[in-house]
Structures are given as structure tokens and as C-alpha cells.
């Protein structure tokens, strides 16, 4: 379990409160490089003990957003505060309470991991004795203790990633920006890192997780924001996103008796839409499963149709992501489809008016 000692005089609020006080807060954040708008009006809030996953194609604006939040880049417009500190006016205070796992591990190849952690620990003004014990604890936790005498240039990609993650955690930051934390890791190490992230979440850390691993995002994140061409196009819990983008949940019923067709009374249940059926099973959709699933079971029982299983059809976050983020060049996504539909409607209306 990762320690939860609070350093730097910062005390994160209790995550058990129903509406956590935002630790990471950005309002209308924008970044322009000359004519190029890398980030447009990004607003987000992350409370203590919460994880926000930022999803998006390469170049969508995730890294620029985290760089602005980490007080590395100044926003062209907008404001961001981390733990109440303004990223533009109080950058040092911000950098003291954040841990930033960058896109590339970027280690010093000629250094040993303990010296590396000493260096960053000293920059964070951690007393030497605490620093040593903390380094050992983290290195043991991430299975790097036995390789501490190797130069980091000799490390594998996964080991490098873990060393970089330990560097981001060495000062026990209250806020974490994790850019692809499990990239290049074997499944065992990836699980180890995910467990560590979950522990940090329980220890009330506020985190932003940039990832292309949608399963990981779904497992770890409380909320997911999809960023496209510098804009957050949708944000919510994984379930909310699926609901919004893919419609009401789907359920599959497996029956113990073969049947040619579903009885009309069942097909006629107003809260249920049957999507497809075969001899011994059928799939349906309902907006209010709490209400309609029991009714359906009762109706099936009345017709003497025994139910072996009733299960929710799992829908992947990938479908949501592809639907909203589309292709990297921005074609073929739902936003374009919506825009096309709007254009078509306008044109039809214009023709009707002309007639």
C-alpha cells in the first residue's frame, strides 16, 4: 500500500464527501502556438480521490493540456488551479504538489536509480533519511530494488517506465498527471502499476490519466473525457458515455425452451425494444431496466418460458471512443455525421421553402 503521508503542507479534502472539492480545476484553458490552436477552451474539475482519464488521438491536445496543468506551459487563455495554486502565478507551488509522469520516461542513462531519485528528491527538499527509506519502499514495491545498482541505460522499457513513475511519486504528490503509465510494460508490471494507481486513489490523490488503453481507462477512471482537436467533446462516467453515445443498455435473455417467435404480449411491452432473436434467446434494449426487467421475467414466466440467464450485453468503451473521436483526420465520426445531417435538413427546408 502506498503511504498516505501528506507533505508540502497540503491537505487534500476527504474524498468521501459527495461532491469533492476540485483539486485540479481548469476553466476555458486554451493554448495557441502561432496560428495553431493546440487546446481550445478546456474546462475540467478533478476532486481528491478521483481519476479523470483523458482520451484522444495522438496530437489531440492531451499532452499540451497536462503541460499547462503542470505549469510547464502558460495557457494563451483561461485559468487553471492545482490545489488552489494558480499555474501561471504560482508555478513553483504547483510543481511542489504535482507528480508528472511524462510521455517519455526520459531518464538519465548514466545514473543509477537511487541517485536519480535522490536528485529529484533533493529538488523537492525531502530530508535525506526520509528520501532513502521512501525510495527503497517504492523500488521494492515496483520490483526495481534488485536492479538498483544497474545504470538506468541498461533498463528495459518497462523498467524505465516504472523508474519514471517512482520519480513522479517520490515526493508523495497530492496531484498526479500520468501520461501512458503502463505503456511498454508486461501484463504483470501493468497490473502492478494499476494497483498502485488504485491505492493512490484510495489515498485521496487527484489524478489525470492520459492513455490510449481504453480498458485501463474504464477500470481506473471515475470520469472519462474525450479530447478531439484540442477540445473536450464529451465527458462523463464510462456508463454515462455509453448511454449517451450507444443508447440504452442491451440485455440478452437465454430461454430453456426453443420457440419460433416471441409471444406478442412480450414484444408489445412498451418499455422494451426487442433487437434480435433466435431459437432460444433474444436481445432487447430498455431505458429503465429496474422497472422493465422484472416485468419481462414475469411475462415470460406467465407464458411458461423458463429463463436460464438474463445478462447485460457488455459494450466496450472502444465503440464510444471511435464514435466520438473518429479518425485522426476528423472524418467519419459521429460529429461529422451530425453536421452532415444538419446540413441536409437545412438544404431540404430551403428546397421546401422554394417550392
Amino acid at each position, binding site marked *: 500500500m502506498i503511504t498516505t503521508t501528506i507533505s508540502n503542507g497540503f491537505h487534500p479534502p476527504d474524498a468521501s464527501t459527495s461532491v469533492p472539492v476540485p483539486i485540479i*480545476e481548469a*476553466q*476555458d484553458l486554451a493554448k*495557441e*502556438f*502561432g*496560428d495553431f490552436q493546440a487546446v481550445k477552451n478546456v474546462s475540467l474539475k478533478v476532486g481528491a480521490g478521483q481519476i479523470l482519464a483523458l482520451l484522444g488521438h495522438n496530437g489531440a491536445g492531451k499532452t499540451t493540456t497536462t*503541460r499547462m496543468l*503542470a505549469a*510547464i*506551459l*502558460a*495557457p*494563451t*487563455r*483561461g*485559468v487553471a*488551479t492545482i490545489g488552489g495554486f*494558480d499555474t*501561471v*502565478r*504560482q*508555478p*513553483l507551488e504547483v*510543481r*511542489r504538489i*504535482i507528480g*508528472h509522469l*511524462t*510521455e*517519455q*520516461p*526520459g*531518464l*538519465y*542513462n*548514466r*545514473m543509477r536509480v537511487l*541517485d536519480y531519485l535522490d*536528485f*529529484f528528491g*533533493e*529538488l*523537492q527538499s525531502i530530508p535525506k533519511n526520509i528520501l532513502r527509506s521512501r525510495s527503497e519502499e517504492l523500488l521494492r514495491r515496483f520490483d526495481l530494488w534488485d536492479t538498483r545498482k544497474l545504470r538506468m541505460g541498461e533498463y528495459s522499457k518497462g523498467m524505465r517506465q516504472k523508474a*519514471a513513475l517512482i*520519480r513522479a511519486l517520490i515526493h508523495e504528490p497530492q496531484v498526479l498527471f500520468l501520461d501512458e503509465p503502463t505503456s511498454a510494460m508486461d501484463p504483470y508490471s501493468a497490473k502492478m502499476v494499476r494497483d498502485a494507481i488504485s491505492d493512490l486513489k484510495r489515498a485521496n490523490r487527484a489524478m489525470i490519466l492520459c492513455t490510449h488503453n481504453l480498458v485501463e481507462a474504464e477500470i481506473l477512471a471515475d470520469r472519462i473525457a474525450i479530447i478531439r482537436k484540442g477540445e473536450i467533446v464529451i465527458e462523463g462516467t464510462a456508463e454515462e458515455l455509453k448511454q449517451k453515445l450507444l443508447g440504452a443498455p442491451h440485455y440478452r435473455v437465454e430461454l430453456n425452451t426453443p420457440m419460433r417467435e416471441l409471444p406478442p404480449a412480450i414484444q408489445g411491452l412498451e418499455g422494451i425494444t426487442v433487437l434480435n432473436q433466435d431459437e432460444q434467446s433474444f436481445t432487447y434494449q430498455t431505458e429503465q431496466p429496474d422497472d422493465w426487467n422484472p416485468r419481462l421475467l414475469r411475462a415470460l414466466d406467465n407464458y411458461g418460458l423458463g429463463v436460464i440467464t438474463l445478462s447485460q450485453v457488455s459494450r466496450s468503451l472502444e465503440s464510444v471512443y471511435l464514435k466520438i473521436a473518429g479518425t485522426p483526420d476528423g472524418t467519419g465520426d459521429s460529429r461529422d455525421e451530425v453536421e452532415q445531417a444538419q446540413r441536409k435538413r437545412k438544404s431540404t427546408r430551403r428546397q421546401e421553402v422554394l417550392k
Partner: protein
Amino acid sequence: MSVNSTLMAPARPRSSFRRAMIVTRREIRDTLRDWRIVTPIVTLVVALPLLLALVLTANSTFLIKQLTPETFYNKLLPFTMLAIGFLPMSFCLVIALETFVGEKERNSLEALLSAPLTDLELFMGKYISATLPTVFASATASVTFYVVMALSGLQIPISAGLALTFVGLNVLEALVMVAGAVLVSTHTTSVRAANIMASFIIIPMSLAVQAEAILLLNGLNNGMYFMLLGLIVILLMLLRSGVKIFNREEIVAREGDNVSLKGVLSGFGYFFKRTPREGLTHQKTGARWTPWRLYRHDIPQIIGLNKGASALLGICLLGAIVLGVWLSYWPEVQQVRQEYNLGQQISANQTNPTCVLNSDGTTLQAAGFGAVTWQRLFINNSFAVVFASLASVVTLGLAGIAMLMVSIGPIGFIIGLLLQADHNPLPLLAGFVLPHGIFELTAVIIGISGGIRMGNAIISPPRGLTIGQSVQFSIINFVKLMALVIPMLLIAAIIEANLTPTIGCAITGGKF
């Protein structure tokens, strides 16, 4: 929460030397672990001084015979010591490029940028780490050479002052090279590209060393102090720009070394379409570009931005006049004045050759300036302003200032001569300088201030602009300024050729 952070000036956090030293220690340790750097430095510090000392000792009799004892002891040995001190210095450039660009290339910089360090601490930490090992190596090499020579029975007759000058020169050269390397580093994203650009530092530094050699071998040891002074000035300028340019924004935002003509042209278009204020804050274009907007908004804003450079030029202009007056009092000038009886001629109420008196001696006609037409004046002045401005770009503004002072200095000189002849210089100035000078001098100051800003664009880019954008911004501003300067020079030329002689003769009565 306010939504426009650009309106809030970011507070500058206090920098600590202790934190900078943490970076320095790590960098030095890293450098000393790199055999590609350590091996040549050790060779230059130990092997080369030993080898040279042995060669010089073994051949001393022959060399003294060939070069004379004076040249051997007082010139060759001190110069060898200076050169031995300089050679390890050249490695500071390699270390600096590794430290600044290498870190960027290896992607380890972003982690450091996320640490609680100010830009200045990071700059100082890296700057010191790049210079300290080589300064130490340089001193060791010189001392090794001196000691080995002394042990061989050949004492180098070097005064403490000269030895200190050598140390000063070597240290300053190292500091200048590292400061130059910072500038190079901000323009590149790979060590390879930085090494190519480093020739811009190596060539001037090797020229400086050659100049030192010439001074030393010719016994002009005092010239070394001027070299020191020159290096200090260059160092201060480079440091100023280095500190300004070395910021997270510039480092992180630059991600490629590619040159795109389309990109460059679009950059020029970007700043041309916007008013300077919009360009500086990356705002969208407000009013469409029109000649009216150019004269109503763009040019006044540029003049406002260049007010520092204009003030400097104004001071230099007054300085040139004072300098001219001062020169006129030089004994050498007095001698010439007496030789040609200049004071007598002026005080004898001689007629100004520019003016022609009528036969009655009262009515006055202006003879003009002979073959000088307004077209010639206009072309000459326009060329001078453009040339001075462009020369300012490569001389950090010095050429523009020098050209202005050289053209204004003679006015001061004439004032001085008139004062010495007990004549009031004001009518002459009011008649022969003021009518066209109002336009000409104003245009020259406005124009050259644009040139100085172009020269300053690399050293001191405005906040929010990259170096490239800063250069484009200053060029476009200069071009826009020309829309005011050229017409003003045209007006000045017409007045100077056609009205100034008449006004001048009328005010002065045709006399000096």
C-alpha cells in the same frame, strides 16, 4: 475565476542558488561519467602540457637562437601558456550542447521542468555545470605547463597581472561560448543540429584567440584588456538574451528543426495582417488591413514599441553633437584652425558661399547646394537609413548608432568652431539644419530604431513570441515603419534642396 490569464503578469518566483547547485552537481557528475568528454580533457590537461613543455625544453637552445631570447621568453612561452589554457576551454561548448540540447533530445528535460525549479535556477545550474569543469581543466593545464617548465629550468617570465589576464580571457571565452551555446540550444532539438550551428560560436572565438596571439606576439599586452572588456560586453548581452530565451515555453514548444518556406511566409503574413499589439498577444485580427489602419494604428504602435531604441538614438544624437563640439577644441584642430585662419575668416563676417548677396549688399538670394538635387538627397538618405538599419541587425544595433553619430557629429564640430569664433551658432542651425532636419532626423531615428529592434529580436524576443516569430515580427514592423520613414525622407529632401538654403540665408543674412 478570471478567464484571461494573459492579462495577469505572472509573478516571478524567487530563485535559489542552492537549488541551482543541485542541478550543477548532477550535471557535473554526469559529464565526468562520459568518457567521450573526460578522455580528451584529461589528454589536454595532462598530456599536452607535458608534451609541449618537453618539446620546448628540448629545443630551447635552437629556438632561442632562431627567435632571439626576448621573443622566446617574453612572447612564445606566454603565448603557449595562453593557448594551453584555451584548448580545454573549447570543450565547454561540447558539454554545454550536451547539457542543454542533449537533455532535450533524450526527453529527460520535461521531468526536470515539472520539478519545483525556476527557469533561472535551471539556466544557472546548467550554465555553471558547463563552464566549471573546463575552467578547472584550463587552469590545471596552464599550471601544469608552468610547473613542468619551471622544473625543467625554464621559468616563464610572466607577471601576475598578465597571468590573471590570461585566466580572465580563458574564463570569459568559456562563459561566452556557453552563453552562445544556450542560444544555439534554443534553436535546435538535436545535438547534431546544435553542433552544426555551433560554428557560429567557434568561428568568432577562434578569431578572438588569433587576435590575442597577434597582440601578445607583438608585445601589445595592453590590448588584452580591451579584449577582456569586449568579451565582458558580449557576455552580458548573450547572458541577457540567454536568461530571457531559456524558458519552459520556448524549450517545450520547439519540436522540430525543419525549415518551411510556406511556414515562414505565412508567419510574415500573420504579423502583417495584425496590428503589432494583436501580433504580440496572438489575438485574432480586428480591423482589416488598410493604409488608414497602417498609419492610424500599426505605425503608432510600432513607434511605441521602439521607444526605448528611439530614446537611445536621441541620446546618441545629442552625444554626437557634444562629441563634435569637444573635438573642435582639440589642440590639433586648433592648430589647423589657426593655420588656415579659420577664426579670422568667420569673424570677418564672411559671406556664406551658399548665399549670394545682391549688388546692393542687402537683398539676398540662395545659391542652393550646387549639384545637390532633392532626388539625390532622397536616394542617399533613404539608402543610408536602410543600410544603417540592416547593418544594425548584424551588429546588435551598433552600426545604426555609429552611422547616426558620424553624420550628426560634424554639426557639433561646426557649432564648436562658431563658439570659438564668438559667433552664435543658433541662426545657422535654425536656418540650415532645422527646416529639413525636423523631418530627416525624425525619420532617421524612427527608421534606425526599427533596425535596432531587428537586431534585438534574437537577443531579446518579446514575451509570448518564439525567436523565429520575434524576427518575423520585427522585420514586418520595420517594413511598416518604412511607409512613414520614406515619405518623410522625401519631404526632407525636397525641403533641403529647395527651401533650406533660402531659409538659411534669410535667417543668417548670408553671413556666417
